[in-house]
């Protein structure tokens, strides 16, 4: 085939026709462009698998959002007596469930704030460093503003979950959790 139509047949690295190739190459005539084509096609198949995995991830998030909506509002829970917390102090508590650690902070005489203790970067526990004006995440040196819960330094991009508080007769109650993107 390659004598009459030299442009046809397998293409060899040195460009010579098949019958001028050494015997070993004639026995194993690998067509390089075809080989490249097959490699690219296999790579595209792998990319499609990745694409499928992303779709699964998206629908997993969607399913989780449906489940979350079904949970409804969290209960109202007593956190502490207001006089048990000095100005500049912090008190850990769990809300809304026993595995949801939060921090109650007294910023000044009249201002209280409470945040989820999980860092929004990789869920390490943030520790209050109110004398330095921050809630500090020791894992990757992230910092949050105690007044707003917004990130001020380090890798976290989202603010801490804010616990909605209500003070009645000197007692602090948690009434909900506000998740925020900014």
């Amino acid at each position, binding site marked *: *085939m390659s004598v009459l139509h030299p*442009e*046809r*047949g397998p*293409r060899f690295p040195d460009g010579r026709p098949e019958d001028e190739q050494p015997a070993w190459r004639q026995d194993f005539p690998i067509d390089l*462009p*075809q080989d*490249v*084509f*097959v490699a*690219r*096609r296999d*790579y*595209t*198949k792998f*990319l*499609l698998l*990745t*694409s*499928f995995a*992303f*779709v699964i*991830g*998206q*629908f997993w*998030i*969607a399913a*989780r*959002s449906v489940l*979350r*909506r079904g949970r409804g509002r969290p209960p109202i829970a007593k956190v502490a007596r207001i006089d048990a917390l000095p100005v500049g102090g912090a008190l850990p508590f769990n809300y809304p469930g026993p595995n949801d650690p939060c921090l109650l902070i007294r910023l000044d005489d009249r201002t209280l704030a409470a945040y989820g203790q999980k860092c*929004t970067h990789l869920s390490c526990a943030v520790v209050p460093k109110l004398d330095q004006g921050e809630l500090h995440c020791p894992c990757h040196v992230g910092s949050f503003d105690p007044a707003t819960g917004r990130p001020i330094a380090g890798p976290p*991009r*989202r603010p801490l979950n804010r616990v909605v508080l209500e003070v009645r007769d000197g007692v602090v109650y948690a009434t909900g959790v*506000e*998740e*925020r*993107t*900014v």
Partner: protein
Amino acid sequence: MKTRVGREQDLTVVYGILCLVLILVVLQLWLLMATMNAFLGGDDVVVWPAAFASLACLGLNLGLLRSLYRVGR
């Protein structure tokens, strides 16, 4: 069997398809990250539209893979 020129043209088409698939996969990755960020921030509005957009990207990718097999014939 195809000619050399035909094969080279095929390879150009293959590279074009591969680039499009890559762009779509990167778009899906960005979509997943943005949706995850919104979901963890309590925003559920974007979740379903993003899931269907990602599914559409997968559909496009499947079409491109099919055309890739056609090129190889």
